[in-house]
C-alpha cells in the first residue's frame, strides 16, 4: 500500500492537477482571514464546508490521475483494482486532510481568530475537517470516467449531489410529512456545520455525532464504490 501511495503521490504531484483546487481553497481562506477577528468555531464551520467541496474535486482528480492504459498496467502490478482504487481514495483523503489541518492551524497561529482556540476546539475542529475531507473524497470517487461515459455529466451530477448535501436541512423542511427521512440518504454535511456553528451549546454526544455519522457515511460510500469497481473492473463505459 505504501508503494502505491508513493506512486500516486508522484503521479498527482507531477500532473499539477492539485493546483487548481488547492490554490482556490487556500486563496479563499486567505481572503476570509485577511480581516479579523473572526469567531472561532464559526470560522471553522465555513472552512470545513469549503474543504468538503475541495476534497470532492481532489477525489475526482486523484481517481482519474492515471490514463486508462496506464491504470491497466498498474492494476496488473498491484494485482487488484480494489487495492489500487483504495490507495487512490486514501491518498486523496490524506491530501485533503492536510488542507483541512492547514485551515485549522493557519488562522489560529496567525491570530486571525477572536481568541486562541482551546485544545479541545482545535482537536474537534481538526476531526470535523478530516471527516468532511473523507466524505468529499468518498463521494467524488463515484463521479469519474470509470463509471460515467462523459466527464461533463459526472462533474455535473457531483455538483448537484454536493448542492443537495448543503441544502439537506431546507430539503427536509420542504418535504411532505413522513418523507423527511429521505434527507438521511444525503451526505451528513449539515450535522457538522450545525455542530460547529452551535458548538458551545452542545453536549458531548451531540459534538461527536457529526464525526461518527460522517465517518460511517464515507466508509459505506467508499466500500460500495470499491465493490462496484471490483465488479466492473476497468470496463470503461466510454469504450
Amino acid at each position, binding site marked *: 500500500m505504501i508503494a502505491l501511495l508513493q506512486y500516486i503521490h508522484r503521479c498527482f504531484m507531477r500532473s499539477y492537477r492539485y493546483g487548481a483546487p488547492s490554490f482556490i481553497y487556500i486563496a479563499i481562506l486567505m481572503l476570509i482571514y485577511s480581516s479579523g477577528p473572526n469567531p472561532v468555531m464559526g470560522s471553522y464551520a465555513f472552512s470545513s464546508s469549503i474543504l468538503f467541496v475541495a476534497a470532492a474535486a481532489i477525489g475526482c482528480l486523484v481517481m482519474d490521475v492515471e490514463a486508462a492504459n496506464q491504470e491497466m*498496467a498498474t492494476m496488473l502490478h498491484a494485482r487488484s483494482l480494489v487495492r489500487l482504487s483504495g490507495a487512490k481514495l486514501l491518498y486523496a483523503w490524506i491530501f485533503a486532510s492536510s488542507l483541512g489541518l492547514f485551515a485549522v492551524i493557519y488562522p489560529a497561529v496567525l491570530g486571525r481568530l477572536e481568541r486562541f482556540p482551546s485544545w479541545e476546539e482545535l482537536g474537534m475542529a481538526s476531526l470535523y475537517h478530516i471527516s468532511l475531507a473523507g466524505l468529499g473524497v468518498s463521494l467524488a470517487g463515484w463521479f469519474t470516467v470509470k463509471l460515467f461515459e462523459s466527464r461533463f455529466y459526472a462533474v455535473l451530477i457531483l455538483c448537484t449531489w454536493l448542492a443537495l448535501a448543503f441544502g439537506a436541512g431546507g430539503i427536509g423542511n420542504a418535504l411532505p410529512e413522513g418523507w423527511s427521512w429521505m434527507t438521511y440518504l444525503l451526505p451528513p454535511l449539515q450535522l457538522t456545520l450545525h455542530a460547529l456553528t452551535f458548538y458551545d451549546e452542545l453536549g458531548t454526544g451531540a459534538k461527536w455525532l457529526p464525526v461518527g455519522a460522517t465517518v460511517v457515511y464515507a466508509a459505506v460510500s467508499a466500500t460500495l464504490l470499491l465493490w462496484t469497481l471490483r465488479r466492473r473492473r476497468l470496463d470503461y463505459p466510454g469504450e
Partner: protein
Amino acid sequence: MGIEAFCMQILNMNKNCIKMVMKEMIVLNERIKKKHAVDPGTAASLIRLEQVGKSYGSRKVLSEISLSLDRGESLILRGGNGSGKSTLLKLVAGIIPASSGHIHRSSMQLQMGYAPDRLPKLRMTSEEYLIHMGQIGGMPMATLTTRIEELHELLELPAHSPSLLIHYSKGMLQKVNLMQACLLRPALLLLDEPFSGLDTDSSEKLLTLLHGLRAKGTAVVTALHDPLPSWESVSTTYRIREGQLILEETDTNEALNAGSIRYELDGLLTEEARAGLAAAFPHVDWTAAGNAVRCEIPSEDCHAFMHDFWQADGIVLSLKRKEGAI
C-alpha cells in the same frame, strides 16, 4: 585475413542463430506432438477460458471463446482493427469482466504482465516509473534495480536517463511499456501490438527477450498485425473473425506438408561429404561451385540435416528461413 579465418568468424556469429532456430524447431515439433497427444485445458493450464463472451450493450465483440494456455506456450492473436484482439487480452488479464462464460486461472496469485497498445507519456523517467511498478509488485529493491538495468541494456535504452517519458519517442515509450510488462518475470505475458513503433534492431532484441522468457516457462500471448515468422514458428496462431476465435493451424500444417517452409543454407562443404549428404537427404536441393554450396532444405529435414552437416565439418555462412510456394 584468410578465407578460413573469415569463414570461422561468420560461423561463430551464425552458431547462436542456428542454435536458436534449431531450438525453436524442436519446441515446435514438441508442441505439435503435444497438441495432438493432450486435450486442451488440462489441469496444468495456466489459464483456461470456457465459452467466454464479451458484449458492449447490444454489440457483441467476442462470443464463445474457449482457450487454454500452458506454461511456456506462445499464442498469437490476429484480426482486423476492432476485431476484439485487445478485448480478449484484457479479458485474459482480468482487466475487464466477461459478459458470459468462465475464466479459470491456475492460481489467484498468477503473476501476469500486460503491455497495452501504448503507454501514455508520463512525467517520470523510465527508471522512476519502473521502480514504482516493481515496488507495487512487491519486488525487493536490490533485485528490482538489477532487473531494470538488465532490461534497459537488453532493449538499448539508457537506464539512468534524466529525460521524462513525455519527451520519449513512440518506440522508446513502447520499450518502457514492454519493460514494465516483463519486469516481474510473469508467468503469463500479454502483449498488445508489442512490435508497434520498434525499429528492426529493437524488434530483434524484443524477440530475444520473449524467447528467453518463454524458455523459462512464461506463456506469451501477443496481438499482432504484421507477419513475424520467427515468432510464428514457435506459436499457435488464432484469428478473431466476427467475434469467433479461429485456429490457423490448418494453414501451417498445409504449409509444412506442402514443404513450403524451407531453409536456405549457404556454406562450405567438401565434395566427398556433399555426396554422402545428398544420398542421405534426397529432398534437399543442391547448388554447388567447388566447396561452396547452397542447399534448399525442407523444414522437416532441417534438424537432421544440420546435425549431419556439422558432423561432416561443413561451415555455415548463412541460414535463412523461407516461406511460400516452391
